[in-house]
């Protein structure tokens, strides 16, 4: 735990650690869905709620995050027009993965945290790949999966900011 993390800790209110980050991730998703191309390239499409799933599982176990992730996943499905239930399962898989090993990850160095985040994303995207293959009967393009994985991997600072802000809010889970 860093000194900065302790100093930046905030009381744990559902609106603060769940509501506002959810709203931010929805807003960012909507903005990045604008159909423009800059120099022939489309905007990236990272999965913002995956960063939340990683951070929420590390901050503390709670009943609320799974259902919040369920709602965020459903939003992604209907907004992006994908199969309904795909992203909720991927987000919950990421959350479950981190929740099961949170003792090992909590308090680690930045690089280890980032690698853990990358491994969590890999679990989520692998599940999404499998579910999509089963649902559509065809394997999605690995290059496209790789681009979305990389874009989401770059969101780690967002997850890190959330963890440092709230990880000491509940002393039982220090």
């Amino acid at each position: 735990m860093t000194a900065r993390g302790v100093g930046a800790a905030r009381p744990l209110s559902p609106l603060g650690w769940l509501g506002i980050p959810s709203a931010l991730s929805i807003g960012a998703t909507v903005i990045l869905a604008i159909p423009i191309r800059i120099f022939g390239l489309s905007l990236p499409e990272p999965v913002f709620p995956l960063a939340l799933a990683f951070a929420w599982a590390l901050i503390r176990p709670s009943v609320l995050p799974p259902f919040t992730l369920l709602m965020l996943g459903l939003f992604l499905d209907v907004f992006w027009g994908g199969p309904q239930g795909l992203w909720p399962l991927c987000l919950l898989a990421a959350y479950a993965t981190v929740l099961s090993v949170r003792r090992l990850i909590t308090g680690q160095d930045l690089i280890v945290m980032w690698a853990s985040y990358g491994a969590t994303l890999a679990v989520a995207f692998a599940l999404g790949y499998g579910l999509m293959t089963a649902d559509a009967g065809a394997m999605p393009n690995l290059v496209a999966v790789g681009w979305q994985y990389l874009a989401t991997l770059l969101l780690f600072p967002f997850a890190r900011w959330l963890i440092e802000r709230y990880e000491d809010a509940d002393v039982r889970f220090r």
Partner: protein
Amino acid sequence: MSLRDGPFGDIRVPLTWSAAAALVIAAIIAGALLLGDRRETMKAGAYDTARHAVDVVAAPVGGVLSAPVRWTHDGLDFVRGYLGAVSENRKLKTELAQESALRDTLAATEIENQRLRAVLGIRTDPPLPHVVAETIFDSRGPFANTRLANVGSDHGVTEGDPVLSEHGLVGRIVGVSDHVSRVLLLTDAESHTPVLLVRTNGRAILSGDGGGTPKLDYVRSALNPKEGDRVLTSGDGGVFPRGLPVGTIVRGFDGGWRVQLDSDAAPIDFVQILLFTDFAQIANEQALAPKDLPTAMTEEPSQSIVAPGTPATNAVKGADAAAKPAAGKTAAILAKPGAVKPGAIVVAKAGVAKAITGKPGAVAATKTNVKAKPGTTPAKPAAKHAAPATP
């Protein structure tokens, strides 16, 4: 005393377990939703209320967000065009030289084409009605490739309508609300489009996989596809009209054949939605089934339902008695009043009616199946002329 030493210290395990329980419940809900999902079908019921609601709310937001971005983009295009004017001019001169040679070839081909059309009697496809829409949101991930267009059922858009940009086919409509509709792009993993390879006239299925260049499936090696071959919609299955431009064949990283989409040539901001009726799916059996039918009329084998003395009966009475109907068989005959000429004998035999003119060996009328299923009736309910078997 810290909280860890107090009574709250024991709550740690239950909280973890309750979080796990919540996780399982949420996963079960999500799994059930995934199993019940039918987004790729073009049936109206498959596009559920939640999707409609999000689309309707997202449409105005997208319009507001897109406008300033598009203005900026237009401005950048203007500046880029000005800066690149010299190279553009050089490129256009080269293209003009190439086009001059092609122009003569085109004129000759056009004449030949007209002659061949005249010879074969080929009809050109009728012009299809369409509406122009603006795409306001775009999902580009590996698991969903869709767009939201700002016209809906208020403009006559329905599920299955093809969507084109100015360069080629973009996809088809999979969800429609009042003022907004969802376009499933050709690149989506659940998109499968029957296509035609122009050079060989071979058929294939264009299957999206979330990448930029969809795959060509079910390509027979005998067709020998080549890079640069043009691909059009084949019209098979009736979802798309035949001949819409799709793209050009390229070799994929995996060694398979893929298609570089024509619609990728420029940003897809404005699209054309063809109000195309899929004739393969137009038949609604419920709507086509007859509703107000008269009760089917039957008769006892030994007794006629026609009162004696009717004109039709009299006509039969005056007929040539040389005809020999099979005794004991039901004679239920279809005939309009006056349709049977005087002197003709109408005989029903095992469900097949024949009108015999009376001339020996001459059979004049067509065979008409008059066997009536329960709840249905023969084609002309007004016809109830029956001729009893005349010994």
